[in-house]
């Protein structure tokens, strides 16, 4: 929160501005800086979530993921999520960064850091932010399977044969 005061003669206008720390990047995520950015003496609790590229998904072996985003809308949706979280929990600071491009096994795809006065708030807010990010922020991943094939991931699963045949017919 930043406090901006404009003084006009005997009038003072005070603006409280939530500093947003939301970004998309093609570089490796520096979660240490991200976490430092949300620490503050007003907050006794910091929760950091990292999403990393997992080797096995439903038994199939991943070798890499490619992430694509719709950047302007993704940033707008992340800012909305931050506001939604702030309306539910007494959040001090939030920082969210999502990586785009080619990620190898173990790489960090997303980091969410949040600070609150108390730990329960920080856990709830952090989980809310990553849960909602995954359903509303326009970013997509493409699996690079160990057998050399690639596949866009989108909830609801692959198209059924009927849908594909329907399109051809």
């Amino acid at each position, binding site marked *: 929160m930043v406090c901006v005061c404009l003084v006009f003669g005997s009038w003072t206008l005070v603006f409280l501005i939530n500093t947003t720390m939301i970004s998309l990047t093609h570089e490796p995520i520096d979660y240490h800086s991200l976490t430092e950015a949300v620490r503050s003496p007003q907050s006794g609790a910091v929760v950091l979530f990292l*999403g990393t590229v997992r080797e096995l998904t439903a038994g199939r072996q991943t070798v890499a993921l490619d*992430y*694509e*985003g*719709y950047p*302007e*809308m*993704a940033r*707008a*949706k992340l800012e909305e999520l931050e506001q939604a979280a702030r309306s539910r929990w007494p959040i001090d600071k939030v920082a969210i960064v*999502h990586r785009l491009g080619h990620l190898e096994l173990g790489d960090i*795809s*997303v980091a969410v850091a949040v600070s609150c006065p108390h730990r329960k708030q920080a856990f709830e807010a952090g989980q809310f932010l*990553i849960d909602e*990010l*995954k*359903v*509303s*922020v*326009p*970013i*997509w*991943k*493409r699996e690079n399977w160990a057998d050399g094939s690639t596949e*866009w*991931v*989108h*909830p*609801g699963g692959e*198209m059924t044969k009927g*849908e*594909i045949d*329907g*399109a051809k017919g």
Partner: protein
Amino acid sequence: MKSLSVKLFAKARDLVGSPTVELPWSDGETVAALKQRLSEQCPDLKPLVPRLLVAVNNNYAADDCVLKTTDEVACFPPVSGG
């Protein structure tokens, strides 16, 4: 006739083979019309159309939302970030 520029992402872009598609457009037409138009103009996209999400000026739009040619419009599959 005016045209509507539609951004495509992820599998939608791959199926069409282009990051944008231009559709003939009359003011007053809706998101539902957009989906119908996409199915006709881009047959490879047809199987994905029932699942496509449509965004207008960075917000998700329902089927009855009216689109103007000056809107920023995007179509894409359900998101899978994180």
